[in-house]
């Protein structure tokens, strides 16, 4: 129960700071620094009290410091977003791996990897959705999906299989359906690829995924 209390306390802390900032402007609008310091506090609490919920808060605050928010992702200036996202993925991924290797809460590594995987896939997909110069991003997405699938199957962490399937399907579909406006073709595509994905997933489920 204490895990939830600590998470609730962290959220209350955030709400209080938001109130102080809005009402009294005590932090003088330095939102970037605020987010970094907030992330440091949450990392401290997460490692001190062994709490993955608060670690997630820390990782999302750190992402905010990098300028990454899901609500802003559709901005036209998303090329800069992608660069920051990939930098974030590299730093957090390497940091998480180093901490795991040093034996500091090695069970936190899964949380690091999950957040990194999702941010990376979002970044790569946003590149695939570009009107021009999307080939490289598609290749990167393809490699990332392969890596995620291999990792998920080898470690029996099926969240990564799910990421590979969903992000990969969205990316491949956007490539195939680019410029296609015929309803029959589009619907036929979804029927055929949907069945193919279903068969593939059932095979994976039979072979690997009995239990979570």
């Amino acid at each position: 129960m204490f895990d939830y209390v600590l998470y609730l306390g962290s959220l209350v802390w955030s709400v209080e700071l938001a109130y102080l900032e809005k009402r009294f402007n005590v932090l003088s609008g330095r939102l970037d620094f605020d987010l970094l310091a907030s992330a440091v506090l949450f990392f401290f609490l997460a490692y001190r009290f062994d709490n993955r919920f608060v670690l997630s808060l820390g990782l999302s605050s750190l992402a905010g410091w990098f300028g990454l928010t899901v609500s802003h992702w559709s901005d036209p200036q998303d090329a800069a977003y992608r660069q920051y996202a990939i930098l974030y993925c590299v730093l957090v991924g390497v940091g998480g791996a180093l901490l795991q290797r040093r034996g500091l809460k090695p069970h936190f590594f899964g949380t690091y990897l999950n957040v990194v995987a999702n941010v990376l896939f979002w970044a790569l997909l946003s590149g695939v959705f570009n009107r021009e110069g999307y080939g490289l991003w598609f290749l990167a997405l393809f490699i990332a999906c392969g890596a995620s699938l291999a990792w998920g199957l080898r470690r029996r962490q099926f969240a990564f299989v799910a990421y590979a399937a969903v992000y990969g399907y969205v990316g491949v579909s956007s490539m195939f359906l680019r410029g296609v406006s015929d309803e029959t073709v589009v619907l036929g595509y979804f029927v055929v690829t949907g069945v193919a994905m279903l068969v593939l997933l059932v095979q994976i489920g039979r072979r690997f995924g009995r239990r979570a």
Partner: protein
Amino acid sequence: MRLYSASSEETLRARKLLTDWAGEGFLTKAQYQLLEQETVSDLRNTNIFLRLLLFLFTLIIVGAAAGLFFVVFLSRPSEQTAGVFSLIFAAVCYAAAEVAVSQARLYRYGIEEALAVCSVGFLCVGLQAAVVSGSPFSPRPDAAQFLVPAAGAVFSLWIWRRFGFSYAFLAAMIFVLFLPGYWTSSHSAQHLIVAVVYATGLASVAAVRSRHRFDYLDEGYSLVEAMLWLGIYLAINLQLSSLNLLSWNLPVWWWGGIRATSEFARPFYWGTWVLIWCLPPVVLARGFRQKDRFVIAVGAIVATLTLVSNKPYLGWQRHTWDPMLLGILLTAVAVFIRRWLARGPGGVRHGFTAARLSGKDKHWMNVGSNVLGLVSPQSITPEPQTSDAGVHFGGGHSGGGGASSDF
């Protein structure tokens, strides 16, 4: 009526418990392997991630196949024709779900679930188009439109009974919300009708549940009972429903806009205020007596909602610091309860403990931490924290509140 045999489901439940206990170290490897051989089920299930994926892709296939059928074979069909074919699709989807369970022995596999969900969707769309004229969102709806939510509710209940999907019961509860708008224009009566229907359902579930306290059905009934308690509370809390915070009674909202609480008769309004204070202790008492986690959780939720909605009920001014005070209060209460339980003999009081007993929490914490990492609101910074240079981290495991850490 149930599609799965009692022995199959009981075996699956035993296996799940076995996995939890083994994960927590309550069983040795040898014990686990021995018991595992005795809990072999003929049902085929999978983990939550593959289940979600299979559900998603089945939905895509069914939706695209239905769309393709209409595009290829029925160019510009009349509403009635489209409705009839939607009803046929509903029947096909339902039959496919039955076959998936009876032949392929799928159990919470995603595929049969998506097919059952699609059958409910096609049934409602088909009835709307084939039987009922006019838009469901028009200001003066056709009285026959009552058929759509009624059929949706009945069919969802059937799927709940037949397949055991708890979310089908939730869907039935949501369909029920749409019904009173067709019978009466009185908002008070609409709230009352929904609350009475839910209360009737609760009485029925409570009566049936008493026979299944220690078998595989108890968990499902527990969840259903918790949903019904929550539904009753939301039906009588006029502040939540008038703000439309919980998508309450959407047809009325679409027809008449958001309702002001002044529309309710004063005795009814203050009667519901009394009830929102009476209900949380009743729910909590029921949960504690039954040692039912879902019901206790709903009791805590409705108690919090009562605190949140009390000021608007009384017409008092709300302040920006109210959420902070509420958060501090909740944190203090949680810490107090935890310490009170921990001070009991052996850390147990009246059969309750603050210690985690099952690996189930750990699993949900893994899933939850991943989800929260994606959806957590980005925090506003605190003052820089000073850290002790002499500390070192290590050990422990998530879920232990740091108790096993060597920090």
